[in-house]
């Protein structure tokens, strides 16, 4: 459930808000709806990673790599897909750690979990 909430909220908020929504959204959701620390990280990581990967892949394919393959070259990567993997990992890590931070912070203040 958290996966879907994070996925949708991040997607929507990023249309108008800055990139670091990928940190803020998982943080808040995990503070609001904590799971376990490991799950907080994994689910947040996965939600952001899947979001960035799928939208990035769409843009990459749509433009036949015209931009992404060139930018990959700037970063000394062989192609845009590999750059997409890097992008995915970066986004995922930020989301994952933010989710975990949200979870621990909630634990710290012993806020009653909303559910489970």
């Amino acid at each position, binding site marked *: 459930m958290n996966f879907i909430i994070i996925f949708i909220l991040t997607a929507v908020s990023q249309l108008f808000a800055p*990139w*670091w929504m990928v940190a803020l959204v998982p943080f808040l959701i995990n503070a609001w709806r904590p799971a376990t*620390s490991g799950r907080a990280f994994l689910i947040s990581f996965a939600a952001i990673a899947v979001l960035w990967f799928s939208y990035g892949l769409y*843009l990459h394919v749509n433009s036949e790599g015209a931009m*992404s393959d060139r930018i990959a*070259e700037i970063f000394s990567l062989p192609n845009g897909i590999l750059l997409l993997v890097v*992008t995915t990992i970066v986004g995922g890590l930020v989301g994952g*750690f*933010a989710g975990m931070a949200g979870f621990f912070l909630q634990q*710290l203040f012993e806020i009653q979990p909303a559910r489970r």
Partner: protein
Amino acid sequence: MKFVKAILCLIVVIGLVYALDRPWGPVPALGNFLSPFTGFWQNGEKQGIPSSEITLKLDSLREEVIIRFDDVGVPHIFAKNDFDLFYTQGYVTARDRLWQMDLQVRAASGRLSEVLGPATLELDKSSRRLGMGYGAEANIKMVMSEPHSREALLGYTAGVNAYIRSLSPKDYPVEYKLLGYRPEPWKPINSMYMMEQMTLTLAGRSNDLNMSEVLKKYGKDVVNQLFPDYPMLQESPIIPVGTKWDFARVPVPLEIPKLDSSAQTIGAKPLRDIREPKVEGIGSNNWAVGAEKSITGYPILANDPHLELTLPSIWYQVQLHAPGINVYGVSLPGIPSVVIGFNQNVAWGVTNVDADVYDLYKIKFKDSSRGFYWHNNQWKPTRKREELIYVKGQLDPIREDVFYTHHGPVTESSNESLQSPDLAVKWIGHEPGNSFVTFYELNKAKDYNDYRKALAHYVGPAQNFIFADNGKNIAITVNGKLPLKYKDQGKFLLDGTSPTDDWKGWIPAEQNPTVKNPPRGFVSSANQSSTDPTYPYYINWSFAPSERGIRINERLEAMSKANMDSLRMLQNDNFSVQARTILPKLLSILETSPLSPTQKAAQTTLAGWNYQNTPESVAASIFETWVPVLRDAIWKDDFDKNFGAGDYPSRDRTEYLILNQPNERWFDNVNTPQKETLNDVVLSSFKTTLDTLTSRHGAMSPSWQWALVKGTEIRHLSRLIKPFNAPKLRTGGGGSIVNAITKRNGPSWRMIVELGPSPKAYGIYPGGQSGNPGSPYYLNLLKKWEKGELNELLYLASPDDKSPRLTSSIKLLKN
């Protein structure tokens, strides 16, 4: 424990977000840059040809405008008034070229360091010292006081800004994202900066200092011998020999010989400007054949301006249609109107005039405060202009005080040991004027008289304006505001204290060299001497070498029933007049010399050469490598220390020396005890040439093909972002060749217009309409250009015209 975990996690997250939210050295802020929602991913465009029809509501538009795009991405703009027309030109140009416009204005106004950091500081200082801003400000006043140019500039500005306002950060061109800055609002003066930049590129050099050095070292006789005012061996001037100078001459200022030669004494080592010296390959060709020489029974006009080839292209194609105007051609991003093009009735093009419009004056200051300078036997006050240069990453701007005399800014130094500059620049780029209105009127011109009227407004950079109309006239005019000078005024450093050396008025515009419908049936130019020596005024003592002009004129002379294709072949002509002139003599010398088997093979290759600089020619590689080595071998010892390669006697003079004066002392290398002869120099330079080629490309083989040795490349405007460069190109031609493609310069636009009841035009440039590397229109024209082909240009009569080549369209409505 919980506490530690929470804090640790928070630190990691905040650290990550912080690190990804700021740039690190050249690396942009990665969070924004990598995010598919805001970053570079957004700049990838759907490939293939779009076919959308959209409607936009925009501020300050007056009436409805329709833009129709064709299959190569050229906008055809249909507006109901001038304001809307140029508004839309600004809008679509920004849509395709915003970052280019930004960068070029920054380069011209000395504001690169603001976004690029200290690396470009010297370049910025140079622009500020030269007074690019001073010139732009002088020009904007003139332009804004003329109603048509004011309307055009205000419309263009509003259009560019309407586009910029429509962007959110995710839409910024990718260069902004990479360099980490944002577009700023466009200002009318930016168009003036673009023109200043063009003036700088084409008319912003002088070798006055070096010529003074030569004069000091060798005296007047040698200067006259080696640096003559007209080519000695061969020339084919732009205005055909025998053209009458049919006007009442104005008196030419007199040179008063100076008793005191102190103005000519300069230091041991002049300080060189950091601007790159003018290279061959920055020039252009144009020609027009008359009705009797063409198969259509109407004139045909051709133009290919040679500039540095960049991505995006320096040019942007556009069709502009409104009441009283329907013009197609190329524009310069940042400047409203079409610069080279055609309309229903006329076609025109330009090549550069190498006029002497950049002079240096030795200034005598009263004291080190530079508040007063000596002129006409009195101390006159200077004017101080404060230039503030902001540098990325530094809090306080760098301040440059530039002192202005009535000549211009005191900006260069005659001696590098000087603490502050002592040479004032008198430059056409500072002259207030409204050159824009020339293009505006040409866009609307109906006949020869309109052409002549339009030209009279023009200031600079001086151009050879070629023209043809449906009334079957052809014409060419060496046009620009040209200072009225005594002979050779400005060939050497001038005396800033003496009114004798001041610029004194101008050659009357109608007396600029011009010819209409000459008996030979064609007009042409390739930057060579404007006229033969009978023209009563001094324009310059040296022009671009004559080979391209000679070849063009020979071929046009022989041509009959010319059509688009025969003229296209001429634009792609690879014949080397230089080789024809000098190679037989060089080979005859080699024949009498002992050669190794390798050298013998190279000699045989050259002997069998047809003088065509084709991409696959090995002989062309040997010859083109040899010529500069030979020139160095002859002149380097005599013009070493203080002189650059551009300061040697001209190519024409060198060839004259080799062919007609084989016993001159210049062949001897003064740095060796023995006495070298022409034969020694030819042989040793030939050996050096082969050694150079072997070390760079291996033993003589197909790897010596001219295309590979020349290695033409087209770089992204940033010169930094390699993946945005064009793929490797395979081209023939060369600097002295009609097909003037060198390593980095060449035909930045090739156009041919067949006039007639309905004009048929063809054109191409290396690149595409879009400046976005992620666009299908970034490189779409490159292959055809490389092959020397042209696209037919789609010239529409109305917004409702049907053509299978039309694709998407935009309707603009006022908000």
